[in-house]
């Protein structure tokens, strides 16, 4: 059992374990942070495979961008305090069953298949090689997808701004907050018991 194997297994355990936490915890911040660690684990696996560039890109974009974005959106939608509602048990069991079936099927297929290696000489995965390939215009070049992705990013940028723009008919956050508090004032006397029950049963998670 060499060192690399141990490191590999540790990284795998971290990735998968944090993934499980991310999808099952009831507190949203814990989910976000577990996601962060899971993505860091994936980056670690890339480092272990000697694909440093990809690992770096992973950390910069995913961990430093997307997870931060998610945390911001959690703030914007004021979900930080309360516990998440749980799904019905029936749905959870059924999903578990379906997922397990799919997992079994895929694993069986993968392990029954013999993958043949190519016999050509390996090419070094350096930043220079990746960069040259990225903008190359010969048969192996990825110049076209590069341009297309840039257009996609432009469209995404514009799209986000447009969708997230507040139209005159939608109320501002302050107005929304005031309206919500008024609704709660009316509802609270009836729903006090309901809230208390939810607090009690929520402790299982």
């Amino acid at each position, binding site marked *: 059992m060499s060192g690399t194997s141990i490191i590999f297994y540790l990284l795998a355990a971290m990735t998968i374990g944090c993934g499980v936490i991310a999808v099952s915890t009831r507190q949203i911040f814990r989910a976000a942070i577990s996601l962060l660690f*899971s993505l860091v684990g994936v980056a670690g696996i890339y480092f272990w495979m000697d694909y440093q560039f990809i690992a770096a890109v*992973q950390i910069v974009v995913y961990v430093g961008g997307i997870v931060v974005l998610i945390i911001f959106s959690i703030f914007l939608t004021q979900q930080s305090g309360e516990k998440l509602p749980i799904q019905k048990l029936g749905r959870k069991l059924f999903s578990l069953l379906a997922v397990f079936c799919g997992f079994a099927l895929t694993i069986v297929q993968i392990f029954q298949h013999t993958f043949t290696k190519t016999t050509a000489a390996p090419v070094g995965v350096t930043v220079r090689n990746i960069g040259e390939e990225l903008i190359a215009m010969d048969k192996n070049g990825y110049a076209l997808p590069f341009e297309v992705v840039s257009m996609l990013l432009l469209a995404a940028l514009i799209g986000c701004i447009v969708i997230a723009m507040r139209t005159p008919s939608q109320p501002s956050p302050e107005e929304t907050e005031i309206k919500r508090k008024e609704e709660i004032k009316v509802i609270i006397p009836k729903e006090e018991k309901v809230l208390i029950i939810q607090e009690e049963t929520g402790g299982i998670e």
Partner: protein
Amino acid sequence: MTIEPGLYHLLFISTTLFFIGVYGFLTRRNLITMLMSIELILNSVNINFIAFNKYLWANRLDGVMFTVFVIAIAAAEAAVAIAIIINLYRSHQSIDVEKAEEMKY
């Protein structure tokens, strides 16, 4: 299967991560946590690409290219998804996905 990690181990990890993401997508009631599950799925796909590139096609860089593009696209998609979630939050005052069922019969 050997103790030394090889292609099969990586594929096992990526499959597991994929189906964890699927489970999370089907079970979570919150839109943001659903988005997190989608990110897990995308990451599993990336691991797959890199694994095949390293172990099967070491003479080319296609897997790496694909991974770069997938990461870029995932970022764009996450941004757009957050924008939609914010918009939905404004109209429903909640991001419970069970409440967004206007498209029913």
